[in-house]
């Protein structure tokens, strides 16, 4: 059992509460940054495959991070985040097509996506809960239609080829090179968000999530913080979209539809709302399940294995089971396991018991 004995206020906002955490994160970072090296030793010929899996994992975690800022920390529901993914991806491809140099194009793509996020946020400030969810959904449908119809720029349904990344005259086309680009972006964004969440703005976001009225009473500028959260979330998701464009190397509007949006929501809900670990855990699920399914398909009866919607169905099932049995998501389970060891042998199931609550109505009677 570990006791927290606070001697300074700084302890509450430290990046790492305990020294051993620093060590573990350092190990993780080193492992990730040397992955192309040790994967060649461990996996041999399959190394390229594993590197590309790691690349999509890290890109997915980045997209999850974007949505987590909005849904998990600011409490604003968005069913339309795939639109920002699409805007980022198309912006990157179009900017590179106009000859904008590569790292700058990533930044610009993220900023364009973030700017659209602000445009969405301004009207969205007046909407709450359910209406916000439906408005963002409508936004997604409209953006998808725009991507499909604005043929002079996006190529419409014929798709758009994405130029290769060129950094200081070197073409980055190998998997491991792309992996490093994605990994560096992801690590930087995570660090930025972790630090933001320790700052007054981050605290204000959490306050708005927990009670908008209370936050307002305490002097939080709700409109500004919400708009900023939309901007940040859209920008991060857009960045992830721009990186996805390079991985896919060919864009078509179908990739950014309602299914992609739902996948993003699966990341944050299954991973665990309101935790950055959750974004990573959720991304692991999202990347691992299709791989496992393709292995499992060999052992399933053909009628089930051949179903086109199988993957979406499995995600739906995971989503339903998570909400029913583990509302805190994978991160909640992780906490419980850690707590079990910390409290051994005194763990009580009731510690995490869901409190009975009456329905909180939003209606006026």
């Amino acid at each position: 059992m570990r006791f927290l004995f606070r001697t300074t206020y700084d302890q509450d906002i430290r990046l790492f509460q305990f020294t051993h955490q620093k060590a573990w994160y350092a190990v993780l970072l080193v492992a990730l940054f040397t992955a192309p090296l040790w994967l060649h030793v461990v996996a041999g010929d399959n190394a390229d495959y594993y590197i590309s899996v790691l690349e999509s994992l890290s890109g997915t975690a980045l997209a999850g991070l974007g949505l987590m800022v909005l849904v998990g920390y600011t409490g604003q529901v968005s069913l339309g985040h795939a639109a920002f993914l699409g805007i980022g991806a198309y912006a990157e491809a179009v900017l590179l097509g106009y000859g904008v140099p590569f790292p700058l194009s990533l930044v610009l793509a993220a900023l364009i996506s973030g700017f659209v996020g602000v445009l969405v946020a301004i009207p969205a400030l007046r909407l709450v809960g359910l209406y916000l969810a439906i408005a963002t959904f409508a936004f997604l449908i409209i953006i998808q239609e725009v991507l499909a119809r604005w043929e002079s720029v996006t190529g419409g349904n014929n798709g758009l080829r994405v130029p290769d990344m060129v950094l200081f005259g070197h073409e980055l086309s190998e998997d491991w090179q792309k992996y490093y680009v994605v990994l560096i972006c992801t690590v930087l964004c995570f660090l930025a968000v972790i630090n933001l969440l320790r700052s007054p703005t981050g605290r204000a976001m959490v306050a708005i999530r927990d009670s908008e009225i209370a936050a307002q009473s305490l002097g939080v500028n709700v409109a500004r913080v919400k708009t900023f959260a939309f901007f940040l979330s859209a920008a991060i998701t857009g960045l992830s979209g721009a990186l996805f464009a390079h991985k896919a190397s060919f864009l078509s509007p179908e990739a950014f539809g309602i299914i992609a949006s739902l996948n993003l929501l699966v990341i944050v809900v299954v991973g665990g709302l309101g935790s950055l670990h959750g974004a990573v855990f959720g991304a692991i699920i999202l990347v691992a399940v299709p791989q496992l399914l393709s292995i499992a398909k060999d052992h399933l009866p053909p009628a089930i294995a051949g179903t086109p919607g199988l993957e979406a169905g499995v995600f739906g099932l995971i989503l339903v089971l998570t909400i029913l049995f583990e509302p805190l998501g994978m991160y909640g389970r992780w906490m419980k396991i850690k707590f079990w060891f910390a409290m051994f042998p005194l763990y009580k199931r009731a510690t995490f018991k869901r409190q009975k609550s009456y329905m909180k109505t939003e209606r006026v009677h």
Partner: protein
Amino acid sequence: MINFVQLCINGVAIGCIYALVALGFVLIYKATETVNFAQGDLMMLGAFFAYTTVGLWGWPFLVGVGAAVAGMMVLGALLDRIVLRPVVGQPAFALVMLTIGIGTVARAMTGAMPGWGTETYSIPTPYAGNKVNLGELVISVEHLVIISVTVGLCVFLFLFFRYTKLGVAMQASSQNQLAAYYMGIPVKTVFSLIWGLSAGVAGIAGILLAPITLVDVNLGFIGLKAFPAAVLGGFGSIPGAIVGGLIIGVIEALAGFYLPLGFKDIAAYVVLLVVLFVRPHGLFGQMARKKV
């Protein structure tokens, strides 16, 4: 002019479908404050049920449809009892995600079900392909059936909520759960019944739609267009849902004819966004101001 009237009639017929799905949303939302994102998929299941009874088993049309609707009602009630009830009182977001999950599971299961699968099917109806000529207007019987069944269903629901004990109990539980509970209304059971009713309405919508669009796994996506309808109507009012559905249907039909390609699919959502930005709680919605 005749063109315009013709388009309006087609729009009204499709609008009736949107209205029925929106009606399902509203019934559930009024009672449990849950937005059922799986409503479109319930509609798809209803169509598949009818396809099974009428198409596969060869039952007489009305009997088969009746059985399908009854099956949908049982399914809806079970869904509430097994999946929704454990999460009552959780944040609205969890419920939204839960119903979205139910929708995708329903789609995948339908696709994997032996005999159903992902192909496109048609339900043999006694009225398919017939047309009525009214002067220069040509109205297909399918559209007439949709409109008249919708009107009939609305009258039935109005009488049901007004004059039956169960209907009054449902109204009471959706207005104030606690008070209804104190008055001896079994609120939980009533909620299950409301889910059953809503699933039944969705099933009817699916069966009505089947002759026009045919039956396939993605039929449920049409249900997403019912969101604009429900929001136009304010999400809490049954007449509002009907009016909203009709407006969306007509706007869509007109946009498909008078505006460039592509506007047909997004017209409903553009209208939705405009309405939400002007009135954040829908056209007929009540302003909610939370007391602190």
